[in-house]
């Protein structure tokens, strides 16, 4: 009886151990695959987007002949003509029209405007020859950043051999420089990639989130207080509860449809405005805030309520003087997480028309605006190659804000965690 006791595995058992290892490996592989995708996605977008930090500029000598300017009306002068003249002077052998157009295309269509700003800033320059750094066009910028393969056949390339030739000449006398790209952070949208910036979208997002927060935080918190501290447990409160849970799972685009029919068509609120965008996002965020706030109210020990009630405070006083302040950090944490979600929302904003081409920075919540994720969507849709870099950079900025908000929420939670 004792002799046949064996703890040496049979071949059958060995096979089972192999499948055990395989099984564990599946688990690891799944996690690695998911995280690998994350790294790949962020990595490739980051790689494509970092280039935006620098903008290529072309340094030109421009003669500001006094006879080209009317001192009373500096603005009227033909600044882009001056830029063109300077380019022709730099490359005198370019003769035919097609070639000339290409030559003028080295710099952005905004180059004349850049020159005007400089002259307006210092009219004394008129009459002299100045050195100015002009924004290079998007294709040239992309080429300089090494994202166009020189070895491709010329017909498949946006930047042709002549242009490469000019660029190389300019580079040879250090006239091609890379400077910090302030325009990306200080200007609005543009049809020209090299001029497009995220400022108007950022401000649009800020206004939208502001409206969203001002609506959803008080409403969400007050609703949570009612449900957790006052509501009798009956069918009515069950109904509210079910509703909240369901709303949290309704597709975001449906909220957009609601905003379109109710806020725009019925109430006639201004289309494309951060006000309406914020209202729609608030409806989506409120369930999140209610759920988080209720959890944090539930974490306040009953002894605090009993203490307040026992010295004669009413229930309203107890709640607002003692319970709610203790639950506030948790409520804020939940709200920040909700705001971070709202910041990334795109579809509902498209529905209410915040998908416009916005050059100017919106000045109020009633003006047409767009939001950062919508700007990303718009740029992603643009055919110009250079917009890939802008889109990626805008995504990095968006993710940056999300990281900051979520870290803030985590820190807040950590700080107030062991209160009770």
């Amino acid at each position, binding site marked *: *009886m*004792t*002799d*046949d*006791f*064996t*703890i*040496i*595995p*049979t071949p*059958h*058992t060995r096979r*089972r*151990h192999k499948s055990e290892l395989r099984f564990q490996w599946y688990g690891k592989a799944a996690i690695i695959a998911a995280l690998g995708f994350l790294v790949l996605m962020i990595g490739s977008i980051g790689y494509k987007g970092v280039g935006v930090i620098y903008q290529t500029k072309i340094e030109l000598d421009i003669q500001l002949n006094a006879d080209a300017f009317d001192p009373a009306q500096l603005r009227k002068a033909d600044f882009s003509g001056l830029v063109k003249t300077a380019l022709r002077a730099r490359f005198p052998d370019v003769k035919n029209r097609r070639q000339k157009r290409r030559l003028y295309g080295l710099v952005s269509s905004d180059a004349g405007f850049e020159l005007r700003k400089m002259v307006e800033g210092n009219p004394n320059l008129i009459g002299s020859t100045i050195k100015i750094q002009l924004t290079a066009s998007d294709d040239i910028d992309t080429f300089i950043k090494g994202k166009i393969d020189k070895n491709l056949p010329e017909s498949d390339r946006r930047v042709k051999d002549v242009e490469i030739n000019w660029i190389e000449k300019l580079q040879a006398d250090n006239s091609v420089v890379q400077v910090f790209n302030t325009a990306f952070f200080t200007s609005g949208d543009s049809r020209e990639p090299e001029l497009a910036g995220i400022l108007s979208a950022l401000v649009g997002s800020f206004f939208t989130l502001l409206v969203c927060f001002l609506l959803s935080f008080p409403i969400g918190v007050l609703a949570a207080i009612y449900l957790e501290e006052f509501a009798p447990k009956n069918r009515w409160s069950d109904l509210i509860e079910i509703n909240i849970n369901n709303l949290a799972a309704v597709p975001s685009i449906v909220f957009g449809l609601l905003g379109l029919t109710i806020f725009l068509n019925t109430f006639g609120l201004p289309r494309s405005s951060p006000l309406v965008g914020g209202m729609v996002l608030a409806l989506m965020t409120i369930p999140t805030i209610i759920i988080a706030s209720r959890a944090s109210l539930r974490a306040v020990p009953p002894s605090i309520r009993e203490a307040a009630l026992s010295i004669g405070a009413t229930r309203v006083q107890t709640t607002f003087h003692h319970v709610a302040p203790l639950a506030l950090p948790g409520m804020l944490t939940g709200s920040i997480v909700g705001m971070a979600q709202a910041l990334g929302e795109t579809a509902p904003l498209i529905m209410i028309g915040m998908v416009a081409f916005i050059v100017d920075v919106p000045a109020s919540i009633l003006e047409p605006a767009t939001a950062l994720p919508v700007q990303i969507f718009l740029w992603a849709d643009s055919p110009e190659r250079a917009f890939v870099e802008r889109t990626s950079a805008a995504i990095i900025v968006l993710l940056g804000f999300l990281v900051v908000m979520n870290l803030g929420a985590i820190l807040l939670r950590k700080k107030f965690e062991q209160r009770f």
Partner: protein
Amino acid sequence: MSKIVESLPNIPEVLPLDPAPQADPAVRVKPLITARNVNVFYGQKQALQNISLEVPANQVTALIGPSGCGKTTFLRCINRMNDLIDICRVEGSIEIGGQDIYHKDVDVVTLRAQVGMVFQKPNPFPKSIFENVAYGPRIHGLAASKAELQDIVEASLEKAGLLAEVHDRMNAPGTSLSGGQQQRLCIARTIAVEPKIILMDEPCSALDPIATARIEELIDELRENYTIIIVTHSMQQAARVSQRTAFFHMGELVEEGATEQIFTAPRDERTQSYITGRIG
């Protein structure tokens, strides 16, 4: 206590011929399980101290002692269920059939197939009665055909004394049985794997007296083919079902011997106090 007398005739069967150094004669056959200087730690906390114990084959050995003294811990050492607890560390050696089960080459799966365990609370799988019992033979590849599996399941249920009650509802969920039936189902599930040893951790603590009596009868029958170690809080139960008894106290093995001797003439004062109800 009358049950002791009834079960006494079993002991002479294994009585060895030559006198032993121990006071107790029964162990002098080659023991099936030998624990030597077993120390168990949960993190910093020591749960068992220097346990040395020999368990003879085809007998029922009862582990008794006050709550928290380490009975479950010791039991779980024998089929290495303690491996599942991260902070648990076992020192010393436990041999079964002459092989150290804590040796690094030992395959726990093979070990556990031969050292079955019945838990304190009946824990049938949320599957049918049939599937509960068929699970073990299936994973170990014990049945070559469906018919063979059917035979194993029925034989195991029969041995566990449950077949008559469930033969017409083998597909009902195991959880639909009564507590006592569930525990017998768990026993059937354990013996379907054909272990050599069955460890039982307070198998009757969740049961009423009638179900308990039924299980005790069953244990007595199983003794013929299996070596059983049972943890119990009931002195009467230990006396009724076991041939040998080990008394644990605060992580130490205080005393071990023939059940009758432990209950009638304990050598240690602590054993005396415990069985008379003064500590525990």
